[in-house]
C-alpha cells in the first residue's frame, strides 16, 4: 500500500515511516503544505496521513483543496489539537479519521489499515479462525478447541475485533470505540474487565494464553508461538 505522510516534525516522520516500512508499506513524506498538496494531487495514494499545523498551507485547507479536486483518497488527520471541537472540525473538513498526538504507532497502524481496506471489495467473511478459536459471524457461535463457549454481546464484539486484528496490539481506546458508540476516554478498567471475563472463559478450556496483555499499550490476540 502506498501512503503519503504530510508532517513537519522530523521525529514523528522517522517514527511513523519506520513503523510502516516494517509492515511492508510504501510511504512517502512531505514536510510542508504546498509540497503535500502537490504530491497528493499528482500521485495516487491509498492513504494520506495529514498533520494540521503545517508550514505554508494549513492541513485543513490542504484537505479542502484536495477534496475540491474530487479526490476520494482516505485521509487520516494526525494532530496535536486534541479537543472534541477540533476533531469535529477535522472530520467535517473531509477527514476520514482523527488521531491526536501523542499516539502509539500500533493504534495508527490499525486505523490506517482500516481506512486503506475501505476501498477494496472485501470478500464476505462468515467465519474467523485464530488458532484453536473459531467464530461464526452469522450465528455468533464461538468455539474453542471445538467446544462452544457462551459470550455476552460485548464480549463477542471485543473478541471479533481482536480476531480481525490478530497479532496486533490493540489499544483500549480502539477496543472501546469498537464496542461502544460513546466517544470518550473512560479512564476506567471497563475494557480490562471485559477482557478478563473473556480470558477466564478461555482459561476454563486451557487457553488463557490466547489474549495477551501488553503493558502500556493494550491487548493482543496471539496466533501460534
Amino acid at each position, binding site marked *: 500500500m502506498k501512503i503519503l505522510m504530510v508532517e513537519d516534525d522530523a521525529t514523528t516522520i522517522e517514527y511513523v515511516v519506520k513503523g510502516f516500512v516494517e509492515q511492508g508499506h510504501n510511504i512517502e513524506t512531505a514536510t510542508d503544505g504546498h509540497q503535500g498538496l502537490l504530491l497528493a494531487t499528482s500521485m495516487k495514494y491509498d492513504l494520506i496521513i495529514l498533520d494540521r499545523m503545517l508550514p505554508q498551507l494549513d492541513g485543513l485547507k490542504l484537505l479542502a483543496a484536495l477534496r475540491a479536486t474530487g479526490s476520494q483518497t482516505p485521509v487520516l488527520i494526525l494532530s496535536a489539537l486534541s479537543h*472534541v*471541537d477540533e476533531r469535529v472540525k477535522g472530520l467535517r473538513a473531509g477527514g476520514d479519521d482523527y488521531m491526536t498526538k*501523542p499516539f502509539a504507532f500500533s493504534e495508527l497502524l490499525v486505523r490506517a489499515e482500516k481506512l486503506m481496506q475501505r476501498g477494496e471489495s472485501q470478500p464476505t467473511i462468515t467465519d474467523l479462525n485464530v488458532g484453536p478459536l473459531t467464530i461464526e459471524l452469522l450465528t455468533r457461535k464461538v468455539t474453542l478447541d471445538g467446544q462452544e463457549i457462551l459470550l455476552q454481546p460485548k464480549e463477542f464484539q471485543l473478541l471479533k475485533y481482536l480476531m480481525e486484528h490478530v497479532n496486533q496490539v490493540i489499544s483500549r481506546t480502539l477496543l472501546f470505540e469498537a464496542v*461502544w458508540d*460513546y466517544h*470518550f476516554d473512560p479512564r*476506567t478498567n471497563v475494557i480490562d*474487565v471485559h477482557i478478563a471475563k473473556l480470558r477466564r472463559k478461555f482459561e476454563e478450556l486451557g487457553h488463557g494464553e490466547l489474549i495477551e496483555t501488553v503493558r502500556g*499499550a493494550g491487548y493482543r490476540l496471539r496466533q501460534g508461538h
Partner: protein
Amino acid sequence: MLDIGYAKGIKPYQSSAWRITIIFSALVTVIIGTLLLGMYRQLINEQEYQLDLHLDAEMTRYQQMALTLDRRSFATQVKSADPKVALIVWRNSLDLVGSLSMIPKDMPMLPERREFPVFTGGPEKLHILTGGMVMTRYGPMLIATRVDQLGTLIDKFTNAAITALMLTVVLTLALGYLFSKAILRRLVQYNRLSKRIEQGQYSTRLPVSWRQDEFDMLAKQFNGVLDALEQNLAAVRGVTDNIAHDLRTPLSHLRIGLEQLPSKPKEELAESCAIITEELDHCLATFDAMLSLTRIEEGQQTLELQDVSLVSISQDLFEMAEAMAEFNGQSLTLTTGEEFQVSGDKYLLFQALFNLVDNAIKYSGEGAEIRISQNRNVISIQDNGPGIPESSREKVFERLVRLDPSRHHKGTGLGLSMVKAILSRHNAKIALSSAYPGLRVTITF
C-alpha cells in the same frame, strides 16, 4: 506617582458637567430675568395707578373745598397743604398760592397728566413732578406729586434685580465648577483605580457610596465585571497550578524511570518501558481532562445538542458498568420508569453519569449493591458502601480533591469536577445524600 491617564488632562471647564452648568446657568438667568421684568412692569403699572388714584382724590378734595369754603379759607387750606401729600399751586388773582412758585405751560387737565422738572435750592436740586390742572370754583389750580421717589424705587429695584441676576449667574457658575470638579474627581479616581487593575492589581474595586447615584451604579456594574474577571483568572490560575502540582509527581516518576533504564537488565527493559509509557499516558490523560474541564466550565466547548432519552442512557450505563460490578463481586441493578427526553450532548452526559457509576463501583467495596434508578427527569445512583461523610460532600466536587488519601485507585481527581461542570452546562442539579448506609447521588434534569 501613578499616571492617571487621560482624565488627568481634563480641566473642570472641559468636562460635560461644566457644559451642563453653563446651559443651566443661562436658563436660570433667562427665567429669573423674565420674572424680574414681569415684576418690574407690574410695579410700574401699580405705581401709575396709585398716582392716578392719589391725584384724583386730591382733585375731588380741592373741588369740594372750593365749593364749601370762602376764597380766604380756601387760600389758607392751599397754603397749608402738606407738600408730602401733594404739591398745590393756585392762582389767586395775580399771586400764586401754594408750594410751587410757577405753573408750567401746557399742563393738561386731570386725569391727563404730564411730568415736569422743578429746580429747588436744596441739596437735591432737580425734582421730577407729575400732575395736571384742575378747575375749581376759584379758578384753575395745579395738583402735582413728586415722582422722583418712585424713580429711586425703580432704580433700587433695577439695581437689586441686576445684582440678583449677577449673583445667580456667579453662584450657578461657581457651584457648577465645583460640581464638575467633584464629578471629575470621582472619574479621575475611577480612572486611577482602573489603571491599577490594568497593572495587575485585580482585587481593586471602585468605591460605592451610600448615595446610590448613577456613578455608584456604574461602579457596582464595573465591580461585577471585575468579580467575574477575577473568578475567571483564578480558574485559569487554578488550572495552571493544578497542572503544575498534579503533573509534577508523575513527571518525576517518569524522570526516575528513564534515568534507571540504562542500568536495567536487558530482560526487564520491555516491562520498564511499558511502566513508563503507562505513567506518561496517565499524565496526558490528566492534562487533557484539565483542559477539557476548563473548556466545559468556561462554556468554551460547544455542546452537540440532540434529544437524549434518559431511559436509554440509563440502559447504556447499566450495560457498560454491569461487567465491572460483577468483576468486583458487586451487584448492579437498573430500574427505569417513565420516559423523559432532555436536549443535551449525549456523549458528555454519558461521560458524567458513567463517572458516577464508576465511582460507586470503585469505592463501595466488594459485595456492595449498586442501584441505578431513573424516573422521569431524575436519575439516581445509590450504593451501600461506606458513603461520604456529610462534611466532605461539597469538597468532592472541587478539582483534584480525593478523599482517599492513599490514592489507591488510579484517577485524575478531576472526575467529579467534570461531572458537575457537565451537568451544570445542562442545567441539571446534582445532590449527594446518605443512603443509610452508603451514598445516593441524585441528578435532576
